[in-house]
């Protein structure tokens, strides 16, 4: 999941879009960043209960400190606060754009509950889940900010595509880091995805080289020893490299989109942002 740093960068990046046309950031655009952050936080709080997680960003989770009941209510409260703030901006288009995120987040979680038998379907399923759970928020926040800043639908689409591609790239790298980094760096234990029964990019690629992983994927790594064996297969395969390469493709796409806007220091910053997404180590 996303670190606060990247979300902060995203907020500024979204605001940068509008620098291109009007030289200041409106209060309503700042509010979008706030709302996006709140929606994200609400979903994380609920996700931690669903995953029975003990730590998040290097600290104890809400559910561990205050129990599951309060954690769920806390998530609902944050969501309601985000909705109130959204309503007060007074723009029905923006409301529609951001409520789409709320729906996508829930659908993403449901997608994660289910699994696909067919290998080909699995990858599409994984990318769809990645979009809904991670990229939709960034894509739609960027779009919302651009809607508030300028009337041109071409610009809205550029903003959306930039956010979407950056978002997917970000999650792909996140999935890679689950295999390559160690726990004190990440702020959460690694192999976390495997332990949750999730088959992410590196695993899906590794499975193409080692078909014996199929059975483990189908049973969601539930047997003792599955998690370690799967991890070994991944590290022996080129799963990590393939996923990283895929992330690079998405970043290039994001850069291609944003380059359609007029040159400016802000546009350069957004291009640099994708470098950061690819090279971060936590």
């Amino acid at each position, binding site marked *: 999941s996303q670190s606060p740093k990247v979300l902060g960068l995203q907020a500024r990046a979204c605001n940068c879009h509008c620098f291109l046309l009007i030289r200041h950031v409106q209060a309503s655009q700042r509010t979008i960043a706030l709302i996006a952050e709140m929606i994200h936080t609400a979903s994380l709080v609920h996700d931690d209960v669903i995953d029975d997680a003990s730590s998040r960003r290097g600290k104890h989770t809400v559910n561990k400190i205050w*129990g599951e009941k309060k954690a769920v209510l806390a998530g609902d409260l944050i969501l*309601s606060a985000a909705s109130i703030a959204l*309503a007060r901006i007074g723009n029905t288009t923006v409301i529609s754009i951001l409520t789409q995120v709320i729906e996508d987040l829930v659908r993403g979680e449901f997608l994660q509950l289910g699994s696909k038998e067919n290998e080909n379907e699995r990858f599409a399923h994984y990318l769809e889940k990645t979009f809904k759970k991670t990229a939709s928020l960034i894509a739609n926040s960027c779009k919302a900010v651009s809607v508030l800043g300028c009337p041109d639908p071409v610009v809205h689409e550029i903003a959306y595509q930039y956010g979407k591609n950056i978002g997917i790239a970000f999650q792909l790298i996140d999935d890679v880091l689950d295999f390559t980094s160690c726990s004190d760096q990440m702020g959460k234990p690694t192999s976390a995805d495997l332990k949750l029964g999730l088959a992410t990019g590196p695993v899906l690629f590794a499975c193409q080289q080692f078909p014996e992983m199929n059975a483990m994927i189908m049973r969601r790594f539930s047997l003792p020893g599955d998690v370690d064996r799967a991890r070994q297969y991944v590290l022996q395969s080129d799963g990590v490299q393939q996923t990283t390469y895929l992330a690079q493709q998405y970043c290039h796409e994001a850069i291609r989109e944003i380059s359609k806007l007029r040159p400016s220091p802000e546009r350069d910053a957004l291009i640099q942002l994708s470098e950061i997404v690819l090279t971060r180590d936590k």
Partner: protein
Amino acid sequence: MNLRQLLFRLPLYLGASGSPRRLWWSPSFDTIFSVGSWRGQSSKSPAHWNQVVSEAEKIVGYPTSFMSLRCLLSDELSNIAMQVRKLVGTQHPLLTTARGLVYDSQNSLQLRGLVVLLISKAAGPSSGNASCQNYDMVSGIYSCQRSLAEITELIHTALLVHRGIVNLNELQSSDGPLKDMQFGNKIAILSGDFLLANACNGLALLQNTKVVELLASALMDLVQGVYHENSTSAKENYITDDIGISTWKEQTFLSHGALLAKSCQAAMELAKHDAEVQNMAFQYGKHMAMSHKINSDLQPFTKEKTGDSMTFNLNSAPVVLHQEFLGRDLWIKQIREAQEKGRLDYGKLRERIKAGKGVTSAIDLCRYHGNKALEALESFPPSEARSALENIVFAVTRFS
């Protein structure tokens, strides 16, 4: 296939074995109409509530459907039903909530939605505001108002489901395997979130930012109200919270009144009625919901046949009032006296409460709110819909 049909199939999944266990806090209407006379349950009583409701449903055009079609056709709903099925045999509260939703669906589960529709019809169209003319009118209710009624039910149900989350570190061996509770929690969160997401979508489609703000703030109120409900240590230590009736009223407004009050107001906003009308609708919603809750709280004390094992909420209206009259120390003494080996004898405690002024006080309070609701209705022109709203108030304030 409409939602009613879908919900009727759920019992097959849930294993319809005997009558569902109803927790004291879920408003179940058959207890309302069993508030009979001292001479015993009048045979008219159960029919009476049903009659009030089915007449009301006729007035609003068709039985209130639960969710918009889009939501019904989703994969997620069948996914949820399938997952809930796995909970059969466990003790997770979600199973009880789901059963309650299913079994209650024959007795107007959707009271809130019904009230929103009735008040929409009672208010009628606003005086010649052009923006309304794009709306689609069926049966004297705008389609956006119908949508709002559904959204209200979605929000209510979402929190009903979220209320059933279990604290894992408080589990005892009698609660069954940890795994089951974790799974139940997972499904409860996802189902609730699914309903909330649909509510948000529905709100966005209304294209009215004031209405979004109203319902979002109602959600916030509801969450805070549920939080207060959960904060009580009454379950473990059998102690009533040290709150007076005015705090009780504030908290109950949050957990039971705000949603209906603000939805009624929002219905008026959708039809572009002025602030005065919006306020009257709000007042009706608020006071009707309060009297409904107090009525529900009074059931354990006014029903003729109550088994001794029937528990009641130590933070309910009659008990809080009883504590206020008695003073906290005496009340705690009474609780202690009713305890045997750490377990509370509810039957004994009930008698002490009935002997005090709490019950009659609560009945008075119920009628007070009922009257306020009726007052608010006076500013609406007489109509079938208005009469139906009055009948609902009469039904929840009947105790003789």
